[in-house]
């Protein structure tokens, strides 16, 4: 499941960075991949739409989107929070 999530995030990043998915590494920064400010915000939107999740606001201290691994972690956390919230509402 985690691998699948990671793979999906990698593919979305590769598409935004207009690069082959093989070039996307966990330790790559968005800057390394040539994803600049506004593109990074677009990337976050693409990921949110894909997984139907909400990331915390980026200006806050609790959301680090510098590296690919940071983003994967944030997606996994948001997905886990969503499962917990759904369970809570049942």
């Amino acid at each position: 499941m985690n691998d699948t999530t990671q793979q999906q995030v990698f593919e979305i990043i590769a598409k935004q960075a207009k690069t082959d998915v093989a070039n996307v590494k966990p330790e790559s920064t968005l800057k390394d991949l040539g994803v600049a400010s506004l593109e990074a915000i677009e990337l976050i939107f693409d990921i949110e739409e894909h997984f139907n999740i909400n990331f915390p606001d980026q200006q806050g201290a609790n959301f680090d989107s510098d590296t690919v691994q940071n983003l994967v972690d944030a997606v996994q956390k948001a997905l886990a929070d969503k499962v917990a919230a759904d369970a809570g509402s049942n």
Partner: protein
Amino acid sequence: MQGLPLRRVAITGMGAISPLGVGAEALWQGLREGRSAIGPLRHPDAERLRVKVAAQVPDSFDPATNIDERTLPMLDRTSEFALHAAREAVAQSGLDFRQDQLGLRTAVIVGTGVGGETTQDEQSRRLYGENAARAHPLTIVRLMTNASASQISIAWGLRGPTFAVASACASANHAIIQAAQMIRWGLADAAITGGTEACLTYGALRAWEAMRVLADDTCRPFSVNRRGLVLGEGAGIFVLESMEHAQARGATILAELAGSGMTADATDIVMPSADGAAAAMRQALDDAGLAPQDVDYVNAHGTGTQANDVTETRAIRLAFGAHAERLAVSSTKSMHGHALGASGALELVAVIGALRDSVVPPTANLDQVDPACDLDYVPNVARPMPVRAALSNSFAFGGLNAVLALRRAP
């Protein structure tokens, strides 16, 4: 252009609708008291929105108190603000536009980032959300960007150059500069100008959320714990006239609009450039015949975003050199929020207040120094001090910079 003596420009009237209340005086009093009008978002869809705070015009604002009932149905909220503020400004100026056919020589130039967003949002909701078969017949006249300028022109029979100026968050300053240039070059003897915005619609709030630049607590310009900008709304409208005209009729001159600077960064659509902003400030100083050391106060663009506040600090240092250390710099957006296309107009009320009352309004919510923001931002409490001249900065998405230079009334 040699040999043409440029005319000086006086500001003789001002009006405002702002989150700090109805009237320029309410805005200025709030600012000098360091009172922030930022609070929990009041909106029918507030529950499902991620935006938590905004600076909103008080619900007690009633356009009907100052606008006749036949005009009201024509107006989007942006034009309600603008027309209301214009009435205040014209009353203060004491101008009679019928006298000597002044109306024929009066320009109306109003800035707005987007125009009638409330109308657009309501009609879209009807059409797409409720499958309505028709739009309201006044949709176009309400939402067109020039509606505010045109309504002001009609209200006083002003027949000079009349149009809207749109440059996102620099709209008001760009509009005021256009109006001042008309007077300087003799294309008009008087002008009504400023900016207006009513941008707190569901659609616009969603769009701002997605940009990830909104603070979730409050606006903390230049503070290391700043978390973004806080949206505001309102209008500031001014009466400008040639200094000669104002002095000849014995008008009370609020301030002299002494010069201006306009540049584009030509780099990034959102990331600001210190060079572009500094060039606009330098231009404004030169145009006004001011040396850096003549200026006591800079009303900063100061949005409270990570990028703006550091870049603007650098730009002020580039433009003012060593004198930057001696400047009082403040961001009043910490109190009236970011009213986008109206922000420069609300801030001009602050600058005029500073020049007239010798008090610099503070930067509210500045509680943790950012090492990258190392100027004197007048934290939290207004400062009594003489203000001979001031700059007012507006920088917009799109990389557009518009700076006003003001001098105390002669």
